[in-house]
């Protein structure tokens, strides 16, 4: 018993001695940035994109010799924590990174389910956090230390409504959405409000719902076709998109169907096939036909990891870029982590016209960026092609 206890203690001492933390004390200050990502769990692809984008960013920073603050170069270290796509694990990961690893800022978590609770932790500990992908307003609401890298659903609804009005000249729209899921439900309502603001009350001629896991939408689509709608808006995830679009075509619908950023997965076209070609949706960025720094990012990512990066990777890249800009403009590193975090937070709030690969960003009072949405067209090869950008 005694021997095993001393063995354990011995191991712990050795582990502590070998850990980079212990050695960092005497050396030059290292800036640590936390990444809270779903490496395992339901959405491992999202975690992978986050990690890869972060590693690419670190490469660039290392090549430049570190982050430059007040004329001095500081080394950077990434602390990547797995949140298993669970809310409680995301909270735990944030707490650990803040209290043990002493990170100066956190990027992540990605989905709202984890970003909303984890944002509370970051705000309570006065540590700046950027969630690249969460579109739920609650993530940043009343949390001065929490920011986000993407637009919000109350913005996306009007964007799509305006786009449809201009592009197709339609005045009567139909909406088909899942009433049992928060994201489609919220977005469908925001779209309805925006559409009726433009075209008057009653111009959403069919507001049809279904329930998660439904596979047959023939009744709803028959009603929509009969209502005289000129366009269908359906803010659904990829498996439903495939079914809705195919069934609409089988029921004789030839007019446009428009989607939202939930269409952005590579799976959408895999499941839907040629039925989805030529359709439009709103998104954060478009891979095919990208130009400038966006194209450079895509090419580099594809060469390194073998596939076209999705919106999560691009938004993570931008969020890290914003953090970098904030740190470099914060003035002076005091060495007191609490003071430094607040300095980073204040610098973040002052970031103006940041040129990201997903668009130009300026944060509002709430920490949400004012940025443009992209309208993506699914082209004849099934690629997501940039069509136009819509700004607030």
């Amino acid at each position, binding site marked *: 018993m005694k021997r095993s206890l001393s063995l354990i203690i011995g191991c712990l001492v050795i582990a502590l001695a070998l850990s980079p933390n212990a050695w960092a004390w005497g050396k030059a200050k290292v800036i640590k940035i936390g990444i809270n990502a779903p490496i395992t769990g*339901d959405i491992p692809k999202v975690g992978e994109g986050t990690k890869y984008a972060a590693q690419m960013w670190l490469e660039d920073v290392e090549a430049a010799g570190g982050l430059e603050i007040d004329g001095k170069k500081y080394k950077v270290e990434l602390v990547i924590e797995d949140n298993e796509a669970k809310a409680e694990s995301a909270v735990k990961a944030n707490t650990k990174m803040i209290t043990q690893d002493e990170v100066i800022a956190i990027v992540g978590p990605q989905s709202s389910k984890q970003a909303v609770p984890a944002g509370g932790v970051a705000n309570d500990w006065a540590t700046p956090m950027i969630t690249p992908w969460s579109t739920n307003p609650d993530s940043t609401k009343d949390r001065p230390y929490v920011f986000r890298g993407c637009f919000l659903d109350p913005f996306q609804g009007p964007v799509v409504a305006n786009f449809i009005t201009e592009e197709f000249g339609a005045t009567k729209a139909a909406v088909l959405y899942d*009433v049992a899921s928060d994201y489609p439900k919220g977005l469908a309502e925001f779209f309805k409000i925006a559409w009726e603001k433009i075209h008057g009350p009653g111009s959403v001629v069919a507001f*049809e*719902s*279904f*329930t998660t*896991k439904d*596979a*047959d939408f*023939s*009744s*709803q689509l*028959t*009603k929509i076709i*009969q209502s005289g709608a000129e366009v269908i808006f359906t803010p659904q995830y*990829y*498996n439903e998109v*495939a*079914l809705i679009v*195919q069934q609409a*075509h*089988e*029921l*004789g619908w030839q007019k446009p169907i428009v989607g939202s950023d939930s269409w952005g997965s590579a*799976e959408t076209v*895999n*499941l839907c*096939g040629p039925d989805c070609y030529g359709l439009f949706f709103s998104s954060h960025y478009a891979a095919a036909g990208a130009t400038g720094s966006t194209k450079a990012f895509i090419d580099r990512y594809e060469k390194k990891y073998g596939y076209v990066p999705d919106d999560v990777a691009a938004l993570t890249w931008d969020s890290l870029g914003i953090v970098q800009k904030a740190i470099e403009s914060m003035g002076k590193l005091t060495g007191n982590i609490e003071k430094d975090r607040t300095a980073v937070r204040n610098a973040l709030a002052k970031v103006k016209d940041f040129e990201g690969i997903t668009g130009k960003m300026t944060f509002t009072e709430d920490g949400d960026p004012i940025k443009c949405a992209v309208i993506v067209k699914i082209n004849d090869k099934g690629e997501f092609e940039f069509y136009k950008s819509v700004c607030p």
Partner: protein
Amino acid sequence: MTVFFQSLVNALQWGSFYALIALGYSMVYGVLMLFNFAHGDVFMVGAYISFIVATTLTALAAAGTIAIPGWVVLLLTIVCAMMLNAIVGVIIERVGYRPLREAPRASAAITGLMIGIILETGVLAIMGAQRAKFPSLIQSVTYDVGGVFITNKKIMIVLVSIVLMIALDQFVKKTKWGMAMRAMAFDYTVVPLMGVPANVIAALTFAIGSGLAASAGCLFGVAYPVLDPYMGIVFGWKAFVAAILGGRGSILGATLAGFLLGFIEIFVALIFPSTMRDFIAYSIILLILTFRPHGFFGEPHSARLRL
């Protein structure tokens, strides 16, 4: 009026799935006095088997080893899936239910639920959480019949279902095996004494029920080409309702009730908000059962049973 006919066509397709699955439920219940609660998941397994068979065949066709048109691939897929799924059904009967033949009915029902979970998680583990895309074997052609849109897929689904139902009816009525099944349904304790191999008949019942579920799974894949491991649960419940509504062990009853369920669901969603669909549809079913507790063609327990 076109809306009515359009919905009629939609309902025929939707009802076909319920009817095909309800038939399997009803047969097992009729012959063995057993609710096979795993039947919805057997349907799901059938859909996945069809998916594997269809993708293999299309891959072979694409590689140029065999040049076969899409509808032949589809027929081959249905036949292969039915046979393979029949084996799955026989295994379930042998491993899950046969040891419990003499046990209380509740044990068998619980076993069914567990088999369902095993099938769901098994498929999840093997196929992954990603949705499977059923290959489009036949080019979808839409016909415009005076404003009513009918696809070749819909016609095929309804036709195949009706052919299968007639074949099953003839099998049960005209063959020796069918007679043995009817005898088992009449009294499954006495029948073995007459020299009827009860275990073989039980396995056969499961094989046919699972085969029909596989045909439903394959047709489902053609109509709704996105498969996931949990798609069988709700279908299982609803087909169970159809089996009860049709009357215990009645082939005609299960068929009619399956189609009726499809019609009610489609038309309720057409008239009311779709959130009210299941609420109204199953309230109607409840009302029917209040007045006919044994279903359309069912009879009280002690009386003679049909199959």
